[in-house]
């Protein structure tokens, strides 16, 4: 028996990997998240669920203290992932970081409901999950309101146009860089930008007449 144990020793390495699956994350997470946002892809969501659910449950048990609440956290978090995936921006960071934010916010609000009997959800106000908003344009508080309104307009643009507007105005990429990034001719970038700006102008004009 003893020889069997020592003979089994080389297996220990793989056993270790299995007991620490948290050190490895499938590289497709971000792709799945985008597929959920763009195509409401249930297959991709199932993959996300299978990866995240057990880990969210573990976090929930630690943070909320019991299994029933941990289950609720899994549902709440994954439901938010399904409904808000379009707020995730792959260029701004890892999928895991975004899902962590969604999960922590849900746990925070759940804890407040239990402890303070507070119904108001604050998590997403305290830690914004709209990645387009939590970007660098921080110091200019004065333009903040304007900025927010602009972002709301930009977010209402069709996906392709929105990506170009954000690339040019928020990430300050050149049209050449964007053409490369999206793998389309520069003319396409130019026409998307022109369409997007026309639409924005129209929307802001509408607003002023109100």
């Amino acid at each position, binding site marked *: 028996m003893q020889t069997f144990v020592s003979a089994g020793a080389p297996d220990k390495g793989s056993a270790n990997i299995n007991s620490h699956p948290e050190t490895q994350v499938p590289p497709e997470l971000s792709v799945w998240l985008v597929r959920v946002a763009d195509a409401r892809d249930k297959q991709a969501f199932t993959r996300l669920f299978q990866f995240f659910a057990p880990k969210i449950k573990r976090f929930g048990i630690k943070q909320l203290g019991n299994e029933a609440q941990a289950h609720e956290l899994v549902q709440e978090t994954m439901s938010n992932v399904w409904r808000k995936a379009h707020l995730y921006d792959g260029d701004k960071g890892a999928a895991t970081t975004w899902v962590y934010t969604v999960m922590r916010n849900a746990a925070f609000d759940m804890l407040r409901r239990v402890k*303070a009997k507070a119904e108001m959800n604050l998590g997403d106000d305290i830690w914004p999950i709209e990645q387009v908003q939590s970007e660098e344009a921080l110091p200019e508080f004065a333009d903040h309101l304007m900025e927010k309104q602009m972002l709301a307009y930009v977010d209402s643009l069709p996906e392709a146009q929105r990506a170009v507007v954000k690339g040019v105005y928020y990430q300050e990429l050149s049209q050449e860089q964007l053409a490369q990034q999206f793998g389309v001719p520069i003319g396409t970038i130019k026409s998307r930008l022109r369409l997007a700006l026309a639409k924005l102008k129209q929307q802001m004009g509408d607003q002023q007449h109100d």
Partner: protein
Amino acid sequence: MINHHPTSDVLAQFVAGNLPASVSVLVSSHVELCAECARSVQRLTQQAAIDAFGELADETAGDELLVTDMTSELAGEFEFELEDFDECIAAITAEEADDKRQLPQTVTEIAVGGERIALPTALRSIPLKEWQGMGKLSRSRLALDDGDLRMSLLHIDKGGSVPCHTHKGFEITLLLQGSFTDEMGEYRKGDFIWLDGQHTHQPVTEEGCVCLTVSSDAIHFTQGMSQLLNPIGRFIY
């Protein structure tokens, strides 16, 4: 230039979601104004996500291995039944996506002392109560249930001051507009100042200021006539 920031420990607790709601709102409001702390929070969040979910595997690692890891984890230490999974997934995917178009929030600015001031994003769901004034001080309590902690917007008009006082518990101030000075220094927009019972101070403002404050207890006036104000110390913060 912002000179006073939350400590790195406070930022880490903030990211973990362990701070009381009002303190979290205050830290979030500072982070919104402070690019430096925004970067720290981003870093800490990345780390917290790695702790919770793991790190991106080396791109060259076989995907198959990872998939087996996941299923064994599912079937193993966690008592999630696979049918529960399916049921849960089916229920969630039956839901609609949230409306992509985020409407601009309603309460994003306030007018104080003839000036318009943008409110931090973190305050957008929290109602403000009626403004109450006393001399050059006015205060609006925020309707946020948070145990013993009270959160307020405080406006001190040009040339105003708060008489020398100490704090029985702690008091955190975030300067949203204007500036003030006390015995310990000068504070400007964005500064995050955490004081406790060890500190005694007398804030004075030349140009006027608007602050967001969280305090755990009434303030206590320490000098001369102002001690008569102690019964209303509760009013100010």
